[in-house]
């Protein structure tokens, strides 16, 4: 294993991760913590207590000005014009053929200001696409470098924040809403969002204060640092998609089962392609699966029917620490996509017996209010 550092960027918390003994890995051009103690222990900790994730690598874009709302409505699949300030909404940036350029969350800050939280790996592609498709590039700003993002996730998240006198905020803040809080003099955009399925928050603030806020949160009882390894198994148990693995420009949100995040009553880039796809009906859709045993299929395993015909392909696969089975997501032909359908997963060498399952794959446990 020769270690060629391919000009990886470090987050402002790099020294914290090293001091905590993190195993660092390259991810979308960043040197990121894969794990601190172990993926399974960190996963279970997040499902039972509270985990803190350094998510500096994700991007934050702003659209500002009187035209921002209208322009954004044309760029993303979710409805923007009816969002009140303080609201977050999940949606997609599509190309002309309906392929997913990225999945993102829209934050409406005010009538004339919106924030987009985008993936690290697609950040420059997204930025270019947006600038090329708005009437004036002046309304767009990429502030990714200046904004730190920490995710606090797990059933104790509210209690952790309450140690800073935020009882009223944690009691009132509903899922997919945000507000501003003051943490030790630092202004934090505080949203009740996340990628784990647990009660949790995402904190956005000046990158200069990253170490200060990290230290403040990590020292609260019940909080442990969690790496990207557990972030992936946590999201997969919920059946959440990972851009680049499960969703990409070769698939539309309809094929990925995201109809409810696509508002067809407005105009947006890629809509015509989706309308055509709706008329024709799509052949494959994204579904979850659960293996019979502990063995898990991996990305690009083939999905076979009981008759050994190839009927799909695995896009994400891992061991589920909560279910203690292999789990994953796959694109599968519609007639085999019903929950309970028995399938085989194979890379040509091994064959794993599994069953199609509705998401979330982890049905119970955790503190997961849907509100």
């Amino acid at each position, binding site marked *: 294993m020769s270690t060629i550092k391919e000009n990886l960027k470090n987050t402002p918390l790099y020294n914290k991760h090293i001091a905590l003994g993190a*195993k660092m890995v390259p991810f979308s051009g960043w040197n990121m913590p894969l794990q601190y103690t172990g993926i399974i*222990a960190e996963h279970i900790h997040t499902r039972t207590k509270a985990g803190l994730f350094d998510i500096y690598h994700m991007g934050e874009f702003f659209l500002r000005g009187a035209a921002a709302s209208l322009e954004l409505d044309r760029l993303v699949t979710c409805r923007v014009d009816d969002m009140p300030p303080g609201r977050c909404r999940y949606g997609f940036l599509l190309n002309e053929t309906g392929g997913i350029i990225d999945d993102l969350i829209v934050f409406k800050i005010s009538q004339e200001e919106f924030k987009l939280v985008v993936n690290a790996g697609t950040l420059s592609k997204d930025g270019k696409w947006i600038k090329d498709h708005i009437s004036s590039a002046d309304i767009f700003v990429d502030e990714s470098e200046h904004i730190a993002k920490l995710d606090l996730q797990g059933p104790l998240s509210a209690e952790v924040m309450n140690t800073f006198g935020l009882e009223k905020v944690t009691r009132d803040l509903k899922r997919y809403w945000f507000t501003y809080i003051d943490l030790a003099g630092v202004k934090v955009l505080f949203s009740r969002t996340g990628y784990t399925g647990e009660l949790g928050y995402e904190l956005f603030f000046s990158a200069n204060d990253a170490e200060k806020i990290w230290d403040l949160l990590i020292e609260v009882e019940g909080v442990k640092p969690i790496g990207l390894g557990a972030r992936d*198994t946590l999201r997969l148990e919920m059946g959440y998609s990972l851009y680049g693995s499960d969703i990409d420009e070769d698939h539309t949100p309809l094929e990925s089962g995201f109809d409810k995040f696509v508002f067809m009553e407005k105009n947006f880039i890629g809509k015509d392609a989706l309308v055509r796809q709706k008329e024709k009906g799509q052949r494959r859709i994204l579904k979850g699966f659960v293996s019979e045993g*502990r063995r*898990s299929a991996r990305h690009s395993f083939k999905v076979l029917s009981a008759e050994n015909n190839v009927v799909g392909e695995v896009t994400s696969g891992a*061991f589920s620490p909560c279910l203690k089975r292999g789990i994953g997501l796959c694109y599968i032909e519609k007639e085999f996509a019903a929950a309970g359908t028995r399938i085989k997963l194979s890379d040509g060498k091994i064959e794993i017996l599994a069953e199609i399952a509705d998401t979330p794959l982890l049905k119970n446990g955790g503190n997961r209010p849907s509100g």
Partner: protein
Amino acid sequence: MVPQELKYTKEHEWVRVEGAEAVFGITDHAQDALGDITFIELPNKGSDIKRSDVLGTIESVKAASEVYAPLSGKVSQVNEILTDKPETINFSPYTDGWICRVDLTEPSEQETLMSAAAYETYLKESRS
């Protein structure tokens, strides 16, 4: 420090030679690189294996990798504990986490293995 009494391969397997028999496992370095081990496909008892053949597959949360036979032999015992508790390899790679025991068919192959000192040097070199 790696156990001095064992022999090693470049693929990070260890061997404990006991007369005409040998016990195989993977090194601490290997388990650390894999992370939490979630599944192991053990060789079949009674099967004949050839040096460098695939002995089994080890899966961790994130990946799957193959374990190679360090020496040729006939498998006389497999560590059944690993079927339900594959994580034993993480906690105890050199003792409780052994993979299988074989009756050696080509004892002279031992010369291809590395001593503990040579393996440590190899680890240092592969890190730099």
